[in-house]
């Protein structure tokens, strides 16, 4: 297990190097000169040149990249063009907010999605199931920013029971996390329902029933335990999606988190800030995927056994993921 974890952590390094390179590549296409944005359009050409020199922007892209990476390896992510503040500090200041929103929304999705999915599957083909399926379908079809605005209209403007925007306490958390969480639940409902249905007719369920096992135990022990496998694999993807969705929620609810920081960084061509933020999000996504794979091994004894020849695990989890998606 430890060897596998270490191996996966090492495999993360090339991916993250790739991510930084991708950001550099995109940056080279980006129109607009950061120097004129920071110093103003009417700044002297010489002044701009000196400013660019200070941040290595006059070097060829590949030289810039190597210089940046050599500093990143030493833990130095540079300073923001605009505020001259340390990028690491700026990002870490905003990160808890974004992470909180993402984690809360995914918790809502998992709780709501799994519960409704199981209820739908156990009531297969009657009105409860049809209603749950309809809700699931509707949820995956709504744009999250629109759903958030609908919630604002209902709960903040009409009923006036929740604040419209800001992020100052638990009552401010409800609308943004509910917007992302409820829509995410729709997707998980669909996955849970189909994976529970896959297990419901399995031989081991019939065996359990024939030996007189209690129905509740059959559901919890035999069906859920097995149905959980594709669900857990898909949760990693939901966390990544929630991190992306948080960017939009932060814009709507005026939450000063990492997403808002990134949009500002994009608009002001504040590359060091943008690179650091994307790198942090990519690292988080990769770590979460690793954790999901480890949990996956814990709940599936078959995979646990396969850990002894650790490379197989990832393929197994990929297979389960593609099976649950289709």
């Amino acid at each position: 297990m430890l060897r596998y974890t270490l191996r996966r952590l090492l495999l993360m390094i090339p991916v993250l190097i790739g991510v930084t390179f991708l950001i550099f590549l995109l940056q080279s296409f980006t129109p607009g000169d950061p120097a004129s944005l920071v110093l103003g359009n009417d700044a002297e050409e010489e002044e701009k040149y000196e400013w660019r020199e200070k941040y290595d922007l006059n070097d060829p892209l590949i030289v810039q990249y190597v210089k940046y990476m050599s500093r990143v390896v030493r833990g130095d992510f540079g300073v923001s063009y605009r505020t001259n503040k340390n990028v690491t500090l700026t990002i870490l200041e905003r990160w808890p907010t974004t992470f909180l929103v993402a984690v809360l929304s995914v918790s809502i999705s998992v709780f709501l999605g799994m519960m409704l999915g199981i209820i739908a599957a156990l009531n297969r083909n009657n009105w409860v199931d049809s209603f749950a399926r309809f809700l699931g379908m509707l949820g995956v079809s709504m744009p999250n920013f629109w759903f958030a605005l609908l919630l604002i209209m209902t709960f903040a403007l009409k009923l006036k029971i929740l604040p419209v925007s800001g992020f100052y306490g638990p009552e401010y958390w409800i609308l943004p996390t509910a917007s992302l969480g409820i829509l995410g639940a729709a997707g998980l409902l669909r996955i849970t329902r189909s994976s529970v249905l896959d297990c419901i007719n399995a031989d081991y369920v019939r065996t359990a029933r024939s030996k007189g096992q209690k129905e509740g135990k059959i559901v919890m022990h035999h069906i859920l335990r097995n149905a959980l496998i594709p669900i857990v694999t898909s949760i990693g993807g939901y966390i990544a999606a929630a991190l992306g969705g948080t960017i939009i929620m932060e814009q709507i609810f005026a939450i000063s988190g990492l997403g808002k920081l990134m949009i500002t960084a994009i608009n002001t061509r504040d590359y060091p800030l943008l690179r650091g933020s994307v790198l942090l999000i990519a690292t988080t996504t990769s770590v979460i995927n690793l954790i999901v794979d480890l949990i996956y091994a814990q709940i599936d004894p078959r995979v646990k056994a396969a850990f002894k020849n650790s490379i197989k695990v990832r393929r197994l989890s990929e297979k389960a993921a593609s099976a649950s998606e289709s």
Partner: protein
Amino acid sequence: MNNVDQKEVKINRREIRKRSMMQESLERLVRNKTAMAGFAVIVTVAILSALAGVICPEGYDAQDVTKAFIRPGKEYILGTDNLGRSMLARVLYGGRISLTIGIISTSISAALGIILGSLAGYYGNKVDNIIMRTLDVFHAIPNTLLAIAISSAMGGGIVNAMIAVGISGVPNFAKVVRAPILAVKESEFVEAARSIDATNARIIFRHILPNVLSPIIITITGQLAGSILAASSLSFLGLGVQPPMPEWGSLIANARQYIRDYSYLVSIPGLAIAAVVLSMNLFGDGLRDALDPKLKN
């Protein structure tokens, strides 16, 4: 008597022979009412948007400030916005843009994804490793963020939004294509093709791809719905389609400041997105059941 029976058997046989797998799937699809309802909505929206110029000859940007903020009613079916522009016109013309973005960006994802996925799956080993590890890089960045990053690098505008949304869908497509190819490439008919010296390109396009068509078609419908949502998010953030072009997401972004008093400006374009995406998802689900009855539950 016997004669008649034989005749019937003959007819049946001919019928059985005539029906290919695709025809059978198509029949199953047509029998699926929800899928057909979804299809009907998509076709209706497509026709209405195509006829936008006939239904609303004044165009999407005809302003009349004296007629601002008229609520949906007799004069204007869907009301008017802050500049007195007819919302019906803006939603219909917006449909053109949203549907076009959906179709073209899905084509981009599909074309690149199918090529990369089949190369990775067919050649395996090094090629597979290089392609899949490169896609891992894209996979590490959440789709929304990737689309934001690409479209901000290339600037606003419809074409760039299509490219941004299209590229961010490539990894998913490549994965979907690669998995079944790994299984199909081991089959006898591929070996047979190889033994008669068919070129690799011929084997991929003539023998392998037609056999993995079902997951590709299913992913295409899913991606269509997804890319309309993604494109509307981009223009909601002000990165995709630029005003005065009436993309659905940008209509909502534009109406946000009037949400307190004129909420219909927010609800209507949102309903349009939700209706189209919902119909595409319903159709896609029906398509999946029709193409792969084993999966149905």
